[in-house]
Structures are given as structure tokens and as C-alpha cells.
């Protein structure tokens, strides 16, 4: 059974600071997804990471994937209040039956305070 663990689950950051959210998963997978969810809203896709060493950046967010360590990171640079949201990582199997299905982590609730 594929398991996905995120930490921390709650994160309170000061504006301007940097921080990293970690996502560990339990079985071989080459596909890692990051989503953002604002309160009362649906999920917005942030990044799709499909190979070992993949790195993607959008604004103050940068995501990376290490398939050998079964670890993805979401790095936040110089946080601003608009980044306050819940961030989910999700993993799919590498191939075969169920390779479309996503298993989600519990989410990291980020609060950026002035």
C-alpha cells in the first residue's frame, strides 16, 4: 500500500522567511504532484514532477524530487501572506494498474504572518 507522509502538518512563518515542506512516500514512484488549496476552495495544481532530480519553480515556490530517497520538497522563499494555504503532495504508482490514481499526503497548513 502506497503511503504518503508530509511534514510539518502545520507551519507558521513570518513574512520574508524561507522554509521547506517535506513529502516522503513508501513505494517506488516516479510521479509526484503538488497542489494548493485555499480555505473553502478546490485544489489548484502547482507542480508535476516526473523524474529523479526534477526541479520546478514558480515564483516563490520551488519543488524537487529525489526518487531514490522517495522524497520531494517544496521550498518557500521569502514568504508573503498570499502563500497562506494548505499544500498537498500526491503520488501515483510508476506504471501499470493504478498508475493514474493519486494517494495524497495529509497536507501542510501554512500561515504566513506579518
Amino acid at each position, binding site marked *: 500500500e502506497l503511503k504518503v507522509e508530509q511534514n510539518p502538518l502545520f507551519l507558521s512563518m513570518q513574512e520574508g522567511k524561507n522554509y521547506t515542506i517535506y513529502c516522503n512516500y513508501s513505494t517506488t514512484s516516479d*510521479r509526484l504532484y503538488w497542489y494548493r488549496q485555499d480555505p473553502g476552495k*478546490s*485544489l489548484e495544481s502547482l507542480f508535476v514532477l516526473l523524474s529523479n532530480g526534477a526541479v520546478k519553480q514558480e515564483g516563490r515556490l520551488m519543488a524537487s524530487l529525489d526518487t531514490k530517497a522517495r522524497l520531494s520538497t517544496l521550498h518557500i522563499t521569502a514568504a508573503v501572506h498570499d502563500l497562506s494555504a494548505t499544500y*498537498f503532495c500526491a503520488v501515483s504508482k510508476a506504471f501499470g494498474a493504478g498508475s*493514474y*490514481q*493519486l494517494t*495524497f499526503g495529509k497536507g501542510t497548513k501554512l500561515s504566513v504572518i506579518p
Partner: protein
Amino acid sequence: SAVISQKPSRDICQRGTSLTIQCQVDSQVTMMFWYRQQPGQSLTLIATANQGSEATYESGFVIDKFPISRPNLTFSTLTVSNMSPEDSSIYLCSATRSEGETQYFGPGTRLLVL
């Protein structure tokens, strides 16, 4: 990208009744999924909606409780049958066109069962 709409956006239902949720995608997609999300919690996959055949259910979810239809490549329905207060949740539809592509999520249906 794909734009997904869901109907209804929210509903309050009586115990023992059933509710059908509709999911419409603005373009043809390969796979459609139904998730459940308790407020403040992560997403749990209910089933994969297969076009032209029976849905594939995850452990803990059964067809009698959550019948699903997918008559074509852009539309799916989820029925929550014989509802109890434990079924109160947010139900999300998602879709993707290919392996490795992100899943696009609908806005969700907020269900309260009294």
C-alpha cells in the same frame, strides 16, 4: 488544462435519502475520479469512473453506497445512497487526460446530512 464544474455546489439532505452529484469537464478526458474530503482533512479516493464500464472502487467504498456512472468522456455522476450524518463531507470530482499529467479538480460539492 481542463475546467471542471460540479452540481450541486452544496446541499443539505435528510437521513435515508440519496443525492446525485454531477461532474462536467469542458473537454474529453481519459480518466475521471471521485474523492471525499472531510473539512480540514486530506483527500480520500472513492473510485475511478470508467467510461462505458463499471467504476473501480477503493477499499472501504462499495457500489451499492456510491453508484457511479460515466456515460461519455466528459461527464460522470456520483450518487450517495441512503445517507447518514457520517456521509457529510466535501465530494470532489477530478479528471486527467494522460499518465503523468496533473489531475484537474472540480470546485467540490459540500454535503450536510441531518
